[in-house]
């Protein structure tokens, strides 16, 4: 079976300890989590975990997903191939003020990569770039020779292509829970 990258979307109420329970679904199978982002979803009170794993068989991913969904406090768990989602990461780069002077190569690089200057501070400038991993990495590679003082990249966030809404799933679940 071929190895692929997968993105999980796990929905739950925001409760202490649940993150550990969700992560345990991966660690017990020695699956390394590439990135993990948690934030509130479109449904009030429901949080969305976006978890990226790399180079796995779909069969295993499916087992992880059903095991996650079985957790008492987890509403729904989905997994997606790269083609099933629209996804982005955000990266921030802290560089010396002089590398971003008028007419400097730094500024040209920022333009070329459609990045933007987020903040100009005493002695340093913060650049922001949103995109896929390759895009934020390409900017990193070009800026590096000019000196990067600090770099941070967020975990992936992803929107799924299927049109069924979370609210519909939750209504179905609430109905089934009283059976």
């Amino acid at each position, binding site marked *: 079976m071929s190895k692929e990258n997968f993105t999980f979307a796990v929905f739950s109420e925001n409760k202490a*300890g649940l993150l550990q329970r969700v992560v*345990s679904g991966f660690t017990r199978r020695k699956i390394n989590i590439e990135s993990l982002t948690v934030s509130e979803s479109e449904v009030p009170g429901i949080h969305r975990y976006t978890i990226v794993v790399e180079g796995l068989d779909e069969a295993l991913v499916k087992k992880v997903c*059903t*095991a996650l969904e079985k957790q*008492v406090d987890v509403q729904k768990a989905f997994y997606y191939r790269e083609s099933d989602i629209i996804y982005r990461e955000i990266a921030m780069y802290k560089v010396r003020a002089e590398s971003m002077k008028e007419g400097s190569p730094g500024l040209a690089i920022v333009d070329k990569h459609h990045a933007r200057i987020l903040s100009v501070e005493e002695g340093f400038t913060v650049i922001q770039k949103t995109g896929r991993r390759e895009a934020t990495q390409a900017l990193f590679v070009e800026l590096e020779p000019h000196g990067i003082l600090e770099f941070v990249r967020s975990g992936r966030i992803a929107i799924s292509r299927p049109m069924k809404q979370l609210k519909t799933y939750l209504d179905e679940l*609430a109905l089934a*829970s*009283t*059976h």
Partner: protein
Amino acid sequence: MSTTSQQKTEANPTTTERITGSEAVVRCLIAEGVDLLFGYPGGAIMPVYDELYKYKDELHHVLVRHEQGATHAAQGYARASGRVGVAIATSGPGATNLITGVADAMIDSTPMVCITGQVPKDLLGSDAFQECDIIGVSIPVSKWGFQITEASEIPAVFAKAFYVAKSGRPGPVVIDITKNAQFGEFDFSYEPCTNISTYVPRPILKKEKLQEAADLINNAEKPYVLFGQGVILSEAEAELKALVEKAGIPSAWTIMGLSAMDTDHPLNVGMLGMHGNYGPNVMINQCDVMIAIGMRFDDRVTGNLSKFGKQAKVIHIEIDRSEIDKNVKTDVAIHGDAKEAMASLLPLIKEQQHESWLQEFRDCDQKEYEIVIKDECEPTDSTLTMGETIKKLNEVTGGNAIIVTDVGQHQMVACRYAEFRQSKSNITSGGLGTMGFGLPAAIGAKLGAPERDVICVVGDGGIQMTIEELGVILQTDVHVKILLLNNEFLGMVRQWQQLFFDKRYSATEMVNPNFQLIAKAYDIESNKVSERENLSDSLKKMIEHDGAYLLEVMVGKENNVFPMVPAGAAVADIRLE
């Protein structure tokens, strides 16, 4: 699992009363119908113990000798009674000592609520005396867990804990309560939990799947039922019997499914698995439709998955969605409760007989009898065997006792040869394989089913892992019968060393204490037998004795358990010798 036995809720849940958190804990337990719990006191749980003292007429506390014993006793209690087992311990080491039992209950789907004390909220994370993050520790091995830091959280958390423990696929729940929450006062009222919006314990059956399953069964020439503990947990014994009788299907039990059907039912063909019966294993690769009910295709059942029943269409009736397609790919998945599923399936099933197919199992039985069972159960040399001991035990109990086992050779022999005439009669650590499970689980089983004879079949290795629980028998006067099969070896490991490690008996020979003197020290009647002519009478005496009893049977030191599917081998490659 039925909830009726635990629905003894308080008359008027809406009235409130100002009480402490620790009293609320006890009141919640009583409201859930709990009248017995197993535990060990300590600093962080003392306020609750103070309330247990006040409520001792309504809630009986059994003092174990080690917290692990509390969990196994709670498991034995749960499995014998069908109710939720409750264990209680203090923080830190008291709590960590529960973990083996929690993991055991998780893998064997046993409803259990574990209550632990915790350091006060203000000290959390400070490495306070006897502080341990027990919820963090227990997350990977529990069905659910919650740390209570305010008294007012207690009723809702306890209600949810009992609901989660016993519903769906049952399992263990851990409730950790900080000491300040035990002291805190609040307005108490209790309402049982009847649903959780994120949790579907009883999936809605899909009619089309039932019909697809029925079509497969009705057209099968060699249908084969594999059933597990799910049948017992959903109390579906009658539905199973009706289904297999109507369709004339040979049926094998997993180790956890033992006693869900009578041993001598003509369609009961025996046990699956590594040390199961010959026919049930080899017929996996002969059947055309496999109907798995409330079982999870454990690796000890399937052996090499790529050579497991590949020719068969697979129907899997299972309440836990994550078990479907986990190990064996299913053709028809019936996601739901076993009792409901089989009751719905029954009218769709045609009446049939599969006599020649059943005969194939009987032919295998004959072969197994000649090569394995005859020597094991009717030995001609002077050394006693485990098999003949269990066979003789059957004669004494009539197959009506609850058999609790520990883990190892004696477990496999007991599961192979013990006879059952009623459900919930086999209590063993199947999934986790926890040595030390037997003795405390037997104590719990006897307290959960006091009207029944409870036999703890145990080896000389396993009994020493939790032998301190003899103290419970002494203090609480539990009439457990301990059948110690002593081969002066860690027998199963020794068997593997003999077969797969060229007889290098690394750390498996046991220099044992005098078990008779130990029994005497605990004021437990005992006897030791090494001669065949005394075996039956000794067993009879053990059963008839009005009180706890330890019967030590000296069995062959280097006897092996056969048949055996070597680890990783195909079920078809089962070895008879």
